């Protein structure tokens, strides 16, 4: 439908699933997320079995290391970014391209904030001597949280590409599924973070 110009009246109810490609992308992103669930489960399980394990006389432990206020702020940023991408999808359904772009930009900004705090956190840990090679615990911690951070980076690059490339093209049935898939992926990053802040930070502080 390259040539078709839509109006809010002709815009279909489920624009992300109106074409065959859209349907494939919809199922595809979900199937990909299923494999990502198992990927994170493997890293998570490794972290749990290596928590607080290190060379004899290691001075770091989860209970003393983590700072809850920072984790709380990061959680709020990511949760809010999840809502803003829902807003973007709401505007997509109503064929309001400006709304889509605005809310997606806000999502990216919130994601960048999250990423900045995470980089600060990592930097802080390395600074006090808790580097990647310090112990099995440190390797596992950085791998788990870092894998999530990498997913955030990929999500940010993805959404930014979408915002930039479609800025002049406007909304159509070719790019609607792309926005939708990116937003599903972004929510999934939030789902993983819910487990990270609960299992790593909160339960880590409990010891």
């Amino acid at each position: 439908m390259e040539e078709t110009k839509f109006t809010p009246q002709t815009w279909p109810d489920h624009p992300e699933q109106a074409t065959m490609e859209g349907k494939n992308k919809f199922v595809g992103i979900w199937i990909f997320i299923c494999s990502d669930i198992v990927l994170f489960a493997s890293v998570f399980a490794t972290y749990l079995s290596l928590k607080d394990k290190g060379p004899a006389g290691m001075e770091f432990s989860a209970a003393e290391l983590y700072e809850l206020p920072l984790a709380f702020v990061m959680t709020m940023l990511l949760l809010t970014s999840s809502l803003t991408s829902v807003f973007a999808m709401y505007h997509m359904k109503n064929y309001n391209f400006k709304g889509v772009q605005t809310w997606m930009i806000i999502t990216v900004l919130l994601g960048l904030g999250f990423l900045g705090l995470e980089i600060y956190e990592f930097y802080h840990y390395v600074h006090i001597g808790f580097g990647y090679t310090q112990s099995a615990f440190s390797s596992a911690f950085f791998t788990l949280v870092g894998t999530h951070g990498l997913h955030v980076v990929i999500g940010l690059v993805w959404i930014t590409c979408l915002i930039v490339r479609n800025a002049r093209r406007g909304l159509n049935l070719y790019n609607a599924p792309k926005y939708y898939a990116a937003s599903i992926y972004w929510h999934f990053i939030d789902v993983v973070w819910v487990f990270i802040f609960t299992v790593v930070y909160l339960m880590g502080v409990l010891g």
Partner: protein
Amino acid sequence: MGHGTEFRAKTKAQYQYDRHHNAVHMRKQVVNFAIMIFLTFLAFTVVVADFSPFFIKPLILLLAGIQVVLQLYSFMHMDDKKGHHIGVIQLFVWTGALIAFTFFITFLTIIWW
């Protein structure tokens, strides 16, 4: 795109209905978001408030579970009956979750020193 995809203008009533439906749906999402924020607060609060770990651990795991279900079914629209093959997708997601669960169990029980 694939052929066989045709689009017709909606009637005015249909259009207004869809608009309204979308808005109502969006309000629901905001309520769900508020619930999620509240659950997060709760989780952090019980940890800071220093209750017994035997109480806190199951509670925050439960709260995390509720949050995840809310994300999946509300934000990610797994409850949307019109989603393409959404039933198959649900089956895949929960199978993945079950397999993930077995990883946790085994890595916590049969890895030892």
